């Protein structure tokens, strides 16, 4: 079985996000970038399926600038077999990403596509679902457990009420939730080997996809700072404030 794992290059989760002074977006200059953590979970799950003998090839794909190659190298160093970089400049919206991934899926013929449920930069949570719709494949989103049983896939999903288990026919789309697994470190010997693994470069035109954004960002601003709380002297005062100031009770 072939598994396709899309990975996105995002601002490292440890970085304190700053808005550009002109409000046009988030400051990316000289900021540490890394693989979207949910995508790391997706890569790890694919590797585990390969180690379990279920999958025989893992293809990592990233859509972004030349530097997204670094993110692909991380995926290769973790254990992906080869990588595809679809080079783009500027913002690519989830629908365009889904269309490009559909193109890759048609060219590569994977039985399973594992994606992060969302990227931590725009939190859109759309690509996996859109891709499933475009391909007409089954989807198991917010996965906390994935089991392959022959031509079928059992996906445990984290939903509001608890856990839901869905039974899917392959080929299928899975999007990962936080508790699916604990991603491994890219080991030092594998980092050295990653350089030798193939990394192909493509352009959106190769898939006949127009990536021009359809949305316009009007403004990006920092969230308001938290205001200091107040101390109350008694329960009576607390109840009074909740009733008359906060209007909660």
């Amino acid at each position, binding site marked *: 079985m072939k598994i396709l794992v899309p990975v996105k290059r995002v601002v490292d989760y440890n970085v304190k996000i700053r808005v550009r002074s002109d409000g046009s977006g988030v400051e990316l200059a000289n900021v540490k970038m890394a693989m979207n953590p949910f995508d790391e979970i997706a890569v790890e799950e694919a590797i585990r399926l390969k180690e379990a003998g279920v999958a025989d090839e893992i293809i990592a794909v990233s859509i972004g600038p030349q530097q997204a190659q670094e993110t692909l190298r991380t995926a290769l160093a973790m254990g992906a077999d080869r990588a595809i970089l679809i080079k783009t400049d500027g913002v690519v919206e989830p629908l365009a990403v889904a269309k490009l991934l559909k193109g890759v899926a048609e060219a590569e013929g994977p039985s399973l596509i594992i994606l992060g449920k969302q990227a931590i930069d725009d939190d859109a949570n759309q690509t996996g679902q859109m891709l499933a719709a475009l391909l007409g494949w089954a989807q198991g989103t917010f996965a906390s457990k994935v089991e392959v049983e022959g031509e079928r896939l059992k996906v445990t999903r984290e939903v509001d009420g608890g856990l839901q288990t869905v039974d899917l026919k392959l080929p299928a789309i899975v999007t990962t939730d936080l508790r699916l697994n604990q991603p*491994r*470190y*890219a*080991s*030092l010997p594998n*980092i*050295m080997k990653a*350089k030798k693994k193939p990394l192909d470069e493509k352009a959106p035109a190769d898939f006949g996809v127009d990536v021009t954004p359809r949305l316009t960002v009007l403004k990006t601003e920092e969230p308001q700072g938290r205001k200091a709380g107040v101390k109350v002297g008694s329960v009576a005062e607390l109840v009074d404030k909740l009733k008359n100031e906060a209007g909660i009770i």
Partner: protein
Amino acid sequence: MNFGLTEEQQLIVDTTRAFVENELYPHEAEVERTGHLRMELVNEIQAKAIAAGLYAANMPEEVGGAGLDTVTWLLYEKELGRANYALHWTCVARPSNILLAGSDAQKEKYLYPCIRGEKWDCLAMTEPGAGSDLRGMKASAVQDGGDWVLNGTKHFISHADIADFAICFMATGEEETPRGKKKKITAFFVDKGTPGFSVRDGYRNVSHRGYTNSILEFDDCRIPADQVLGEVHKGFEVANTWLGATRLQVGATCLGRAERALEHSVEYAAQRSQFGQSIGKNQGVSFKLADMATELKAANLMVFEAGWKFDQGTVTDQDMAMAKLKATEMLAYVADEAIQIHGGMGLMDDLPLERIWRDARVERIWEGTSEIQRHIISRAMLRAKGA
């Protein structure tokens, strides 16, 4: 000249940093407060380090290491150096390169088990009466039939308490040199449990809590001739040829801790508010940050330039002495200023600064004191003038 990192180097830095932050930092408080590194903890972290390929990464690929060049190895050392020394040294061990000098049988017995994490090594040179003056050592080995008989004392021997064997440098004769009589030295593998070889607790010291040093005593300790490492009387040469860039290793670990101290300082200067503004707005604080960052950068450039020259085969003793001198003295300065910026809070063990400050002290002493480094640097200049 290229000062940038390759993709692989960046990935190695990222992996090592992530490992240090996720697997070592959470245990620092325990080790610092108890002064003790539990074996269960060591085993747990060691297994993770082996899985991540970080364990014994200093070793060549053909013996099971990561096969890093010197620059990349130093990048890895710099990241490990951010954490408590006992934790990274024991749980992510870098066995001594001198093990590569052994015979095939010695490699089977000592090198490979160290790389696999089944054994620990330790290196015994220093004596109460012989520190920098290694060739003035008193502990000796005398040939008796096919065996060697070892007598004497070694001290300050790092990690000897957990080590399974020691590589011991012993005087095996004396020779006349232009600078007077010097000892001929031979290196031996001595296994724990060999009759006549005992290890007792060393001293409690100011730096690196959880790190141990021991006193080794040899009392008619008899070992067979195949325990000699390298050639007889060539122990000094074996050490010089095989030990590798240990001074740069010390320098690199200092860079990591200085970077950590600086990061804390910048954060604190930006967040801490007094008299209605962040303390970083005061030049008394902001200029400290500027000087700390500049010193750190200078040391960083020196360590990695020397590492790069090591890979080119053009490095000199002065290059490495300068890098070690600068990095260790820089760390002392940066750690001290970091505490000054933090005020009272800098002295509390809730932050890693007081220990970085304590730990900095030993770095100017071991692997050659700052004075020995200055001697090496100046000697090269003066000898060229016939002085």
